[in-house]
């Protein structure tokens, strides 16, 4: 993967699996001669179908499961040589079912690991406050509460804070958000990304949800039957899936959506235009008839000259209305083409109420308006995307 600078590579990796094997019962291997390198300070997601070994990998790291052979290095130290209890206290652990202790206050839950390490509760008051602020919960309001008084999303925030409390360099998350409702899930995903920009931990995140993986990961490790199928950044994974399995797992639909990026063509409306020579009376008549506030002014060759609307006409005087032709045209109007991507278009729309769409020879094909854009996007977008 990297150049041959073994010593350097070792110190850069937060975690390494070397030839790790694990089998269950008489059956085949869950993992066979498995190698893995996790870089420091990144969110790495392990993803794959059920039984691919992702949770096994996670539990091997904190020794809830012991491997049959091979070694696992945590920042260069073989974890097999460490006391499992000590090891676990230095690794953050967040599980799907949250696992807050119902008989302990939020404060006691968060401060648990440092207390296990022998720190006094009083010395940890400040730490608890800091962590509660970090996850966006007001310390005074929440510190003395009990887990059942909180929503699922808040409980899992506490779960994350608890994992951070002992200041571990690595945090393991086993499908932490999958039991939450969609709104909380998206919220927590966003928060996790934001959070890790501040705390810069190595996070090993197990999920079965490819959307989640693509959203939060710096690095995705796609597994199947205990072997890595592809390890790549989300962008690389989308752009160059290694094989059909990857393509299928990510979802064929997504590739179509990625290939055919949405463009101006999708939000375009028919244009109402008027000739360059028209009088103000003509313009007003056109605007009134079509119940619109702007017209595209075109030349005889149907190429775009500019925009005219009520905004511009307001400044014209009455006497000029009948005789002269239109002079109040706004000429420096940006135009777009049918294949202009939507993100660029939305930027332009913030400045201009109407944007003409033209073909290669600058001939008018249609227009995009703010109202039309919002309406068409709103119709086709999923709720989840809008929340984001």
């Amino acid at each position, binding site marked *: 993967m990297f150049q041959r600078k073994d010593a350097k590579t070792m110190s850069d990796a937060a975690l390494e699996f070397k030839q790790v094997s694990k089998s269950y019962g008489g059956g085949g291997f869950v993992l066979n001669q498995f190698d893995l390198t996790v870089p420091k300070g990144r969110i790495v997601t392990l993803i794959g179908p059920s039984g691919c070994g992702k949770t096994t990998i996670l539990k091997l790291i904190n020794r809830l499961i012991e491997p049959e052979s091979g070694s696992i290095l945590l920042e260069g130290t073989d974890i097999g040589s460490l006391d499992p*209890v000590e090891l676990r206290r230095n690794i953050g652990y967040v599980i799907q079912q949250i696992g807050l202790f119902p008989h302990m206050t939020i404060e006691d839950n968060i401060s648990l690991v440092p207390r296990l390490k022998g720190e006094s509760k009083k010395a940890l008051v400040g730490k608890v406050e800091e962590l509660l602020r970090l996850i966006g919960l007001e310390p005074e309001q929440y510190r003395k509460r009990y887990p059942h008084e909180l929503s699922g999303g808040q409980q899992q925030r506490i779960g994350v804070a608890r994992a951070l409390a002992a200041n571990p360099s690595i945090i393991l998350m086993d499908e932490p958000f999958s039991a939450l409702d969609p709104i909380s899930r998206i919220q927590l995903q966003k928060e996790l990304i934001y959070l890790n920009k501040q705390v810069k931990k190595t996070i090993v995140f197990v999920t079965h949800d490819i959307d989640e993986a693509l959203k939060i990961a710096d690095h995705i490790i796609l597994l199947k039957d205990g072997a890595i199928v592809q390890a790549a950044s989300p962008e690389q994974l989308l752009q160059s899936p290694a094989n059909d399995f990857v393509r299928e797992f990510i979802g064929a639909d997504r590739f179509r959506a990625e290939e055919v990026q949405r463009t101006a063509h999708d939000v375009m409306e028919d244009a109402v235009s008027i000739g360059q020579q028209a009088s103000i009376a003509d313009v007003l008549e056109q605007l009134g008839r079509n119940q619109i506030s702007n017209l595209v002014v075109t030349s005889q060759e149907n190429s775009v000259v500019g925009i005219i609307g009520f905004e511009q006409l307001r400044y014209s005087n009455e006497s000029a209305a009948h005789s002269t032709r239109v002079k109040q045209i706004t000429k420096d109007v940006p135009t777009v083409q049918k294949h202009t991507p939507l993100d660029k278009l939305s930027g332009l729309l913030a400045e201009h109420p109407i944007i003409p769409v033209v073909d290669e020879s600058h001939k008018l094909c249609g227009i995009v308006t703010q109202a039309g854009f919002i309406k068409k996007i709103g119709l086709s977008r999923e709720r989840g995307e809008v929340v984001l």
Partner: protein
Amino acid sequence: MSLFWETIQSDWPKIVQKTLEHVELSFISIILACLIAIPTGIYMTTHKRLANSVITVVSVIQTIPSLALFGFMIPLLGIGKTPAIVALTLYALLPILQNTYSGILSVSPNLIEAGTGMGMTRRQILWMVQLPIARSFILAGIRLVTVQTISLATIATYIAAGGLGDIITRGMSALNTNMILTGAIPVSLLVIAANILLYGLNRLLTPKGLRQQKNTTG
């Protein structure tokens, strides 16, 4: 009615003495039963094969009629307080054992996994997680046993262990209803008092986070 008051007045020192004997018998038996059943119950949660056979044996004891159990004690331990306490203790085992066992097993495996994964030792999981959460189960077992033991201790009189049963049997043989009542009413009062006491204790000891809902999954 006036005769009843007279009986109480004339027998007052005796009633007090027998009540104290009764409390002593019950109290020692319950404490012993707790000392045996709670650790056994905890041990059984990690040795589930053993659990079934232990619970079966203890259940069999429960099926022996109480009078017969006291009778069995005579050839083994003679008469007096000791055999009575042994018999009462044996009777008290099952509810405490059963409730300790199922109380600890009711603690969600997720919490155990969370605890283990965070670096708690087994002992810490037991004391910081399992026992606090199972506490109300165990106390419910003890409450049941207290009521049962105070009632049963009345029969201990047949093996000369004393207690309020003495007054009741004397009243029965003399066909004296008032005397029977002066023995029976203190038994009932003891049961009610112990029940209220333990209920209060349970409220006091149950952590606030577990009071509103019995949610052990978190």
